[in-house]
């Protein structure tokens, strides 16, 4: 296989993998930047995947080809609403953020599977008839070399994810909202003395993580599995969490990390067809993405500093 062949296979598949991780990791950034640890990302993706598939199955006849996009919006809303549980518990009820996140994960799986059984009378949904499908990006696809590698056989959602990452970066680093959000995650008492409503900012942070986690799940379900069952989301939320940390809580960092994960994963798949990797036992390719990530962290990333007040409760008047 020529390098070009390899790239035209690896790049689109990298982007396909990365898209749900990017959305979800960006959600994680909103939450953790506001000071609320969110290991419930997995659960939020489950909610998003479930909602989008159910919506898609139910309303395809009504909305036609717009359905997957509408389903994303619905999943976004559902994710945001569901994340309210995490917000109420960890902000208002002063629950340990991690415990509450674990509960979110447990609850999401239990609830959605329960509902699937209620709605469909069986353990998984049917297959959606219209998900996100492969496209060639108009105009760009004709750029020599680059067009073929990056803009053919790819998915709109991947590009949306990249654009959203840039928007999130802009929001977090360039707008008053972002400044306030970060201040609340770094030093809530300082923010409070500046008249910023710490509780409100944190609720917003968590709900944005719910919204983006929901989108992540919806993108995953509608561009990859096409249905919803207990196995639809199996660890992607944790990978998104890892991408967020790997990316040092920075939107563009998370974008890079998610793409790196996708790349490592794709390489492990293409590997068996590459002459120099062919003889290697399959297991090495299977573990490659994970080992590469660890090596990358050890080698050039090193220490990642979380927002200082992440995981703490802000109780007015305490010292």
């Amino acid at each position, binding site marked *: *296989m020529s390098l070009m*062949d390899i790239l*035209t*296979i690896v790049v*689109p*598949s990298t982007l*396909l*993998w990365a898209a749900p991780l990017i959305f979800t990791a960006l959600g994680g950034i909103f939450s953790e930047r506001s000071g609320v640890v969110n290991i419930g990302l997995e659960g939020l993706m489950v909610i998003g995947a479930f909602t989008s598939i159910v919506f898609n199955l139910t309303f395809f006849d009504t909305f036609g080809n717009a359905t997957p996009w509408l389903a994303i919006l619905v999943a976004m809303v559902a994710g945001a609403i569901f994340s309210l549980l995490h917000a109420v518990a960890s902000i208002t009820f002063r629950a340990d953020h991690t415990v509450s996140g674990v509960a979110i994960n447990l609850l999401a799986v239990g609830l959605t599977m329960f509902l699937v059984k209620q709605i469909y009378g*069986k*353990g*998984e949904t049917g*297959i959606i008839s219209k*998900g996100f*499908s*492969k*496209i*060639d990006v108009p105009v760009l696809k004709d750029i020599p070399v680059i067009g073929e590698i990056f803009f053919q*056989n790819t998915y709109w959602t991947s590009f949306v994810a990249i654009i959203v990452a840039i928007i999130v970066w802009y929001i977090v680093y360039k707008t008053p909202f972002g400044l306030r959000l970060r201040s609340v995650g770094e030093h809530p008492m300082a923010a409070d003395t500046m008249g910023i409503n710490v509780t409100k900012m944190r609720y917003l942070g968590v709900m944005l993580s719910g919204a983006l986690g929901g989108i992540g799940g919806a993108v*995953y379900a509608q*561009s*990859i*599995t*096409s*249905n919803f*069952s*207990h*196995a*639809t989301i*199996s660890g992607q939320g944790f990978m998104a969490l890892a991408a967020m940390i790997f990316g040092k809580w920075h939107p563009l960092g998370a974008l890079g990390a998610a793409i790196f994960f996708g790349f490592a*994963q*794709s390489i492990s*798949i*293409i590997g*068996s*067809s590459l002459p120099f990797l062919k003889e290697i036992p*399959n297991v090495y390719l*299977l573990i490659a993405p994970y080992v590469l990530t660890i090596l990358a962290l050890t080698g050039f990333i090193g220490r990642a500093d979380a927002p200082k007040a992440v995981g703490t409760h802000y109780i007015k008047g305490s010292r």
Partner: protein
Amino acid sequence: ACGKSDDNKGTETSKGGEKGKSFSVAMVTDVGGVDDKSFNQSAWEGLQKFGKDNGMKEGKGGYSYLQSKSDADYATNLNTLARQDFDLVYGIGFLMQAAVEEIAKQQKDHHFAIVDAEVKQPNVASILFKEQEAAFLAGVAAALTTKTNHIGFIGGMEIPVIERFESGFLAGVKAAKPDVQVDVQYSGAFDKAELGQSIASKMYSSGADVVFHAAGATGNGLFKEAVDRKAKEPSKDFWAIGVDRDQADMGPDVVLTSALKRVDVAVQDLSKKAMDGNFPGGEVVLYGLHEDGVGLAPVNAKAPNKDAIDKAVKDYIEKIKSGDLKVPQTRDELKNFSAK
């Protein structure tokens, strides 16, 4: 609470109908649950059909199932069903082998059956399938469909069952068109659709135009990829072959056919035997083409060579049924296989 003491089970439960109590049968699914679109679902459909045909009720004393939520639950579930006095309890899937063996040893007076694995106990019937025969036919169909002479095979995990699929499939391709190249790749999981999708993408990109999967839900990714590609380039061929049940619903334009594994047939058949007092305890019951236990789903009407395929498949079915052709079930056997 649950109200039955444990010492008296010996005499009561051995043979169904004898004491005026009607025959009852139940199964334990593995973690996939009854709706895994694969053998759990198929087994449950078989059991439901058997129950309805014989006027049984769903639930205790009729037909029922328990779903396992982890490997550790198999034994508990099997035991629970035996304790509820079901006359025959199925363990569905090779994962349950050890659990069935263990519980069968404890509950010597109950009948058990295991699908996809062998348990050597006098009160256990082992149901095995000749997956290689179905896969062989799928291989024939694939070989006769490919224009690029390039085919893909996606396996779930490298376990004996999937090896039978692989060996049979490769043999079928070889028999129908010896010079076709087949890429074989295992995803390492039965529930990772994204892996299936990426592997399928790679296979199609590198020139394959027919891909067969034996990878459970991982295979969903194959269909997704094929449907996407077909939608984008309707003029080109992106065929996918399903497994276990007829997966035509996964993509009417791309599903060429499916290698059927009729767990439902096997379950009905064995339940019937047990009800009639002919429980084949301690035996391995093999279901192949001959027993209607495996087969090939109807070939897609849009397939260019449909007639030729149908004909070839029919011929091979005859040969296999008659014993003229023995389909290899391991990679070693495949090495020595020749279709003559």
